[in-house]
């Protein structure tokens, strides 16, 4: 493998870990990973580093340089995103019920949260800024050409009349109280994590 190609793959691995790999490269890269033992091992090491930073691994595991690099990258990322995350934490505090707090109160908090966001210019600005940093990604078609019927009458999918924090709160209630699924649980852990 040429040096340029190796560098490219390394950049893609880094982008994948950071959640910044363009979707057009996503499938290609994952297929590459599945046929490249070395690449899979590196992915595994990076994942272990991430888990270790969360103290999820036994202390006996020595991750060496990979861990130190990952910690440094993580700290850098945290510094860049601190304002965004602090805003979201405050959002969650609104939605977190105390012991015995009812679901009704949780839903009320979602509604109140919307008012809070729209009435605090600084908070709204942070939320909008966070959204604008996400590059639009072109959606790819089904691998199998699976056909999903399209509505006969045009549906305005872009209509948006209440904010993402409110939808997120509803998503948690839906996923938390409904029948669980891996997709539903994943939505709960990632939507606040990197968005």
């Amino acid at each position, binding site marked *: 493998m040429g040096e340029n190609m190796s560098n490219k793959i390394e950049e893609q691995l880094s982008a994948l870990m950071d959640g910044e790999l363009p979707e057009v490269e996503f499938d290609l890269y994952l297929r590459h990973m599945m046929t490249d033992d070395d690449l899979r091992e590196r992915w595994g090491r990076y994942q272990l580093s991430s888990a270790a930073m969360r103290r999820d691994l036994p202390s006996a595991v020595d991750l060496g340089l990979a861990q130190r690099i990952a910690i440094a990258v993580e700290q850098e990322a945290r510094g860049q995103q601190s304002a965004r995350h602090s805003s979201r934490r405050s959002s969650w505090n609104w939605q977190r019920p105390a012991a015995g707090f009812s679901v009704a109160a949780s*839903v009320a908090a979602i509604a109140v949260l919307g008012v809070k966001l729209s009435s605090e210019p600084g908070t709204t600005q942070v939320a909008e800024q966070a959204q604008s940093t996400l590059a639009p990604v072109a959606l790819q078609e089904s691998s199998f050409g699976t056909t999903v019927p399209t509505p006969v009458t045009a549906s305005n999918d872009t209509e*948006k009349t209440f904010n993402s924090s409110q939808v997120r709160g509803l*998503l948690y209630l839906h996923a938390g109280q409904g029948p*669980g699924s891996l997709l539903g649980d994943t939505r709960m*852990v*990632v939507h606040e994590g990197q968005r």
Partner: protein
Amino acid sequence: MWSGPLLAAGALIAACFAAGQSSDSHPATAAQWVERMVAATRTLNFHGSFVYFDGSGISSARVVHQVAEGGVEVQRVYSLNGTQREVIRHDRKTTLVLPDGSKLTFADQFRSSLFALAITDNVDRLNESYRLVLRSEDRVADRRCQGISIVPVDEYRYGYDLWLDQETAVLMRADLIGHGNKRLEQLMFTEIHIGERTADSDAAEAPDAATNEPPIESGPESLQSQAERDWWLEGGPPHFEEVYYGSDAGEHDGFTDHLVLSDGLATVSVHVQPLVEDQEPVSGLSKMGAVSAYAGTADGYQFYVVGEVPPATVKAVAKALRGPGDAR
């Protein structure tokens, strides 16, 4: 809720796997593969990392699923980058661990599962709303997989492309397909260990973590008759049936009705609460990835409809919702 034959099949698969044997005979139809997948994800231990894509970014996460004696399941899902968040499902209790370590706990009305087919008593129920199609084989996380498509019959639900491990039928990759055959979400394992109990602390923490805070109860588990309650549906999107109704009336300061509809695969939740003084009503449609939400008001109440369904579906549910001011 969970049929005996499926449990028996799952136990058989688990037993074969534990003994280091693979199943020699692969299911012949897509429906059989789905049945086997549901059983496998209930009865097998597995843990692994996966990537998740929803059109706005790519994230990585990890799942640890372990089955204790008596079939009690413990499952943890947590993000591997970004802010630390975690969902723990232990039997019928769901705990969301927030970045500051605090916990939000729900008492589930349904058994949790890796894939939302668990509320379906049998896969035949899916035939009303979907076509199950056997697809080609592929490899995911270095394991041979069988491709399957779940194709919706109308515009009120999304489709799925699934890749199931040929040896165990564990779900290895799932693509949620929207209108125009576009992928709305994609979840794919990059490494997985099936049939093993993890040696790290992942699952061992789960039971304790899930009991630190009293769960938020949603009310009685049984479906109440229409005459006994204030909110119900009249019509609605085709093939969606009510699978749960609960009310907090009299138990808390607030009053919330909670309905769950399902077509056997997709689910839609409806939450209702009285509008309180100074509360600004919310109305209209919003989306987050594959999740659609619709809010509206009726008779002094605020209602929310949310689910991993197209916008037309949450709108149809909202249109069918009837409350105290409606004639029965």
